[in-house]
C-alpha cells in the first residue's frame, strides 16, 4: 500500500538508549540498542565513563608501590589484579615466591572467586526481579567477606599482595577456623543454587536466552564462564600458576551456551572454590611468606596470565631498568567477552537484554581502567 520510501521508514530499526545510569547496572555502561519491534537487531556499546588512565600511572609510581593501584583496577577481583601485577614483575625480576606465599595467594584467589560469583548471583537475581534471592545470596556472601577481613585485613580490597610474596600471614589455626566458619555459607549456597537452577520463574527467564555456540564463542574470543558454558574447556588455572598445580579440581563445563548454562558454571565454580580452599589449607606449607626484593627490575618485558572469576586476564609489564616501569597493560576478561555479548543480544527481545548483559558478569571498571 505504502510507497517504497515509507515502507523503509517503517522498517527502520528504532534506537533505544540503555544506560549509563540504569537500575540493573551497578556500573555505568551505555548501549544503543537497535530494535525491530521487540527484537534487538544490533547493539552498539559505548564506554569511557569510568576510564581513569591508571596504566600510565605506572610511570609515576615506584614499581613496588604500584601494587596498590593495580589492586584498585577493580574492587571485585582486587587481590587477583594485585597478584597478577606482582607475578609479572616477579617474572621480570626472575624471583620465585616462597611456597607459603603461593598457597596463601591461591587461598585468597579462590575466596575472591567465591564472593565474586555469589555477588553475581545476587545481582542477576535482582535483575530478573527475584529480590529475596538477591538478599539471601548477599547474606551468605558476608560470611566469605568476614573470612577475607580476618585473613587478609580488608573486606573488598584485600591489600595483601606485594611484589615477592604476600604481606599477611594468617596462622594455620586461623585458616582452619575460617574454613569452619565458611561451612554455614556453603550450606546456604547449596540451597540457594537449587533455587537458582530449578525455580520455574528463573528457568523461564534464563533457558534458551542469549545462546552462543561453541564455535562462535571461540571465534569471538570469549573467555571464562562464557566460553566454558558453550562447552569449550579452557581454564588458565590448569597451567598451574601459584599453587594450582598442587590441588585437584575439575573444570566446570556446560554445553547449552545460554544464560542458564552460564549461571550453572558459576554455581559449580563456587563449590569448586571452597574445595580448592580446603585443599590449600590442608596442604599449607610452613615458612616465610615473602622475599626481600632489592634493586630495580632489569630491562625487559614479561607477562602473566591468571584466571579471574570472569575469565582469563593478561598483565604485561615492560621495564627500562629504572624504579618506574615503562609500560603496564591489562587485557581484562570483560573486554574479551564484549563481542560475544553483542552477538548473544542479537535476536533477543528487549526484556532479555538486562539478563544477557548480566550473564557475562561485566566488570566495566577493569575494562576501562
Amino acid at each position, binding site marked *: 500500500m505504502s510507497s517504497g520510501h515509507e515502507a523503509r521508514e517503517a522498517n527502520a530499526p528504532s534506537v533505544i538508549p540503555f544506560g*549509563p*545510569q*540504569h*537500575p540493573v547496572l*551497578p*556500573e*555505568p555502561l551505555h548501549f544503543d540498542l537497535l530494535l525491530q519491534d521487540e527484537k534487538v537487531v544490533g547493539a552498539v556499546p559505548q564506554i*569511557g*565513563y*569510568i*576510564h*581513569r*588512565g*591508571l596504566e*600510565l*600511572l605506572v610511570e*609515576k609510581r615506584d614499581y613496588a608501590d604500584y601494587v*596498590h*593501584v593495580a589492586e*584498585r*583496577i*577493580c*574492587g*571485585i577481583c*582486587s587481590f587477583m589484579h594485585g597478584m597478577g601485577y606482582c607475578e609479572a614483575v616477579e617474572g621480570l625480576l626472575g624471583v620465585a615466591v616462597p611456597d607459603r606465599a603461593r598457597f596463601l595467594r591461591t587461598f585468597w584467589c579462590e575466596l575472591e572467586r567465591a564472593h565474586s560469583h555469589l*555477588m553475581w548471583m*545476587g545481582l542477576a537475581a535482582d535483575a530478573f526481579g527475584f529480590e529475596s534471592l*538477591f*538478599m*539471601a545470596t*548477599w*547474606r551468605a556472601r*558476608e560470611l566469605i*567477606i568476614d573470612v577475607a577481613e580476618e585473613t587478609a585485613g*580488608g*573486606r*573488598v*580490597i584485600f591489600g595483601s599482595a606485594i611484589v615477592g610474596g604476600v604481606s599477611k600471614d594468617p596462622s594455620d589455626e586461623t585458616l582452619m577456623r575460617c574454613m569452619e566458619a565458611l561451612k554455614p555459607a556453603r550450606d546456604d549456597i547449596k540451597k540457594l543454587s537449587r533455587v537458582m537452577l530449578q525455580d520455574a520463574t528463573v528457568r523461564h527467564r534464563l533457558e534458551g536466552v542469549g545462546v552462543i555456540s561453541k564455535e562462535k564463542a571461540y571465534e569471538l574470543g570469549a573467555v571464562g564462564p562464557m566460553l566454558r558454558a558453550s562447552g569449550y574447556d579452557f581454564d588458565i588455572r590448569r597451567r598451574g600458576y601459584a599453587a594450582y598445580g598442587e590441588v585437584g579440581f575439575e573444570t566446570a563445563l556446560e554445553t547449552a551456551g545460554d544464560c542458564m548454562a552460564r549461571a550453572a558454571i558459576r554455581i559449580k565454580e563456587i563449590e569448586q572454590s571452597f574445595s580448592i580452599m580446603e585443599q590449600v589449607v590442608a596442604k599449607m606449607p610452613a615458612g616465610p611468606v615473602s622475599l626481600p626484593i632489592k634493586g630495580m627490575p632489569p630491562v625487559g618485558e614479561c607477562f602473566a596470565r591468571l584466571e579471574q572469576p570472569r575469565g582469563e586476564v593478561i598483565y604485561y609489564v615492560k621495564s627500562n631498568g629504572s624504579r618506574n616501569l615503562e609500560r603496564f597493560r591489562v587485557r581484562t576478561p570483560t573486554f574479551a567477552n564484549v563481542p560475544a555479548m553483542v552477538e548473544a543480544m542479537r535476536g533477543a527481545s528487549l526484556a532479555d537484554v538486562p539478563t544477557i548483559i548480566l550473564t557475562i558478569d561485566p*566488570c566495566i*571498571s577493569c575494562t576501562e581502567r
Partner: protein
Amino acid sequence: MSSIERSPWLIHYDASSCNGCDIEVLACLTPVYDAERFGCIVTGDPKQADIFLVTGSVNHLNAPILKNIYDQMPEPKAVVAIGACAYSGGVFAECYNVAGGVATTIPVDVYVPGCAAKPESILDGVVRAAMILKEKEKAGRKARALARKEGRRSPKRRAGGAT
C-alpha cells in the same frame, strides 16, 4: 512533613570508582547491614530520590551525567560522597582522566572516608545525610513562611541550589 529523615530514598551513581566502594554500598542494602531499617529504599529514579550516593571521581564524560541526576532530584536533597576517590580522586588523583572529587561538580554534604569505605561508615554517612535533609527541610519551610509573611510569592524551589 518532618518524616523525610525517617524515609529517605537513595539513588546511587558510580562515577568512576573501582567497584570497591560500590560493592560496599550494595552490601549496606542487604540483610547484614540493612539500610532499610532506617527507612531507606534504593530507587533508580532521580525524581524520587532524596539522598544521592556517589562513589568514584569525576571525569569529563560523567560530570554532565552526575549534574543531570543531581538537578533532577527534588529539594531538599543531600549528597554523600563515598570513598577517597569521591573526595579527591584517591589513588587515581594523578591519572590523566580524573578531574577531581565529586565536589568539583555538585555540592557535597557528607564525606565517607575509606578506600574502600566500610559499610558501617557508609550507613553512618546515610544517617547523617538524613539529618541534614531534615535541617534543609526546616530551613526551606521557614524561608517559605517568611516569604508568605512578607506578602511575596514563595520563592521557587531552586534546582541545584543546596548548600
